[in-house]
């Protein structure tokens, strides 16, 4: 068993940071929340259907190496039904000039940035992000940090796993073998 006695409710405009040791079940918890993982006991309730408002970024960035940065993001956008400008989103993450480069020739951090560009496309009110801060440099962390706060201020619910803390008023959920606890 990964965790038990887990009980929390998250609301619009909040940022939730999920922490825990490696193997504590952070990724599994997020997969349960978005409906990808079905083997658990308990209940996950969303206010209304989740799919139309969900933006889920998994542990793997979901970027295919054969496609260019722009093709990858265009497909993600079409699939998720987001309306923003793809080139502007790539530009916001410092990928200007790399739009037509196959993702296979980019670095791990740049691939992660292609996936993160979805956060700049808008239209989603629930963000579930698995380790969004891995592999990106300080500048990227700063941009992402600002983006998460900006989105929460506009009413988006952000749930993410990472050891990086976004601001002081972030809600924290700590997973450990003994049980899960909510830290203010």
């Amino acid at each position, binding site marked *: 068993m990964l965790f038990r006695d887990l009980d929390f409710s998250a609301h619009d405009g909040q940022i939730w940071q999920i922490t825990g040791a490696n193997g504590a079940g952070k990724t599994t918890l997020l997969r349960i929340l978005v409906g990808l993982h079905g083997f658990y006991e308990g209940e996950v309730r969303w206010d209304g259907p989740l799919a139309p408002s969900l933006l889920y970024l*998994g542990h793997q960035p979901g970027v295919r190496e054969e496609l260019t940065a722009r093709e990858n993001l265009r497909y993600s956008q*079409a699939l998720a039904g987001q309306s923003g400008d793809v080139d502007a989103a790539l530009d916001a993450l410092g990928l200007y000039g790399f739009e037509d480069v196959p993702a296979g020739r980019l670095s791990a951090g740049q691939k992660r940035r292609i996936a993160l560009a979805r956060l700049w496309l808008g239209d989603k009110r629930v963000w579930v992000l698995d380790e969004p801060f891995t592999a990106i440099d300080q500048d990227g962390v700063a941009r992402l940090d600002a983006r998460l706060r900006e989105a929460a201020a506009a009413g988006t619910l952000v749930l993410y796993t990472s050891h990086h803390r976004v601001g002081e008023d972030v809600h924290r959920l700590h997973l450990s073998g003994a049980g899960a606890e909510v830290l203010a």
Partner: protein
Amino acid sequence: MSAIWWASLRRELTLIWRAPADMVQPLFFFVVVVSLFPLGLSPKPELLALVAPGAVWVAALLAVMLSLDGLFRRDQESGALDQMLTAPVVTVVPVSAKLLAHWLLTGLPLALIAPLLGYMMQLPVAVLDTLMVSVLLGTPTLTVVGAIGAALTVGLNRGGILLAVLVLPLYIPVLVFGAGVVRTAQDGLPTDGLLAVLGAILALALSLGPVAVALGLRISAGD
């Protein structure tokens, strides 16, 4: 919804086009396996014409099956599969586009080259069109049914053998009727009935298959 389907189809075609080895490999396998028969068996025309329907069909079937092992693997490894499963459209939409793209760039070329291989195997020229139509009707079924196995085994490290065990029994009807049509045509008998059976199997596979593939992917993602 149709916009998502077109975007998916475009993506899948681009993906295969950028990695042409995946497309050429089944075709190469098909040609090589059929060409080995005259070498291993005997170059006698009567003998070759006798085994030709079965040989061409078995080779086509294995070529399709081998190409399916990697159908969802790279999407799963890259995390793109999770995107499809959490998207606000039913998973059948991206899945059906993927299956169509896969058939267009692997099954269809097999059907187009089949008459040439049939001719090499000493099939009478009058039968070659029946051979092509039978492969044309049979390969989409092989793709869809095989994709169900590929979806269920995508999370496993060495899924190839399990895929074969799952899928080959389901391929048997297609093989029996596919090779049967060509043999019937060789005997100069009408083939409409058998082609209709192949078409019916295809209709069944197309209507239920994509749903089964989508469910299989969801099961694979959940553990």
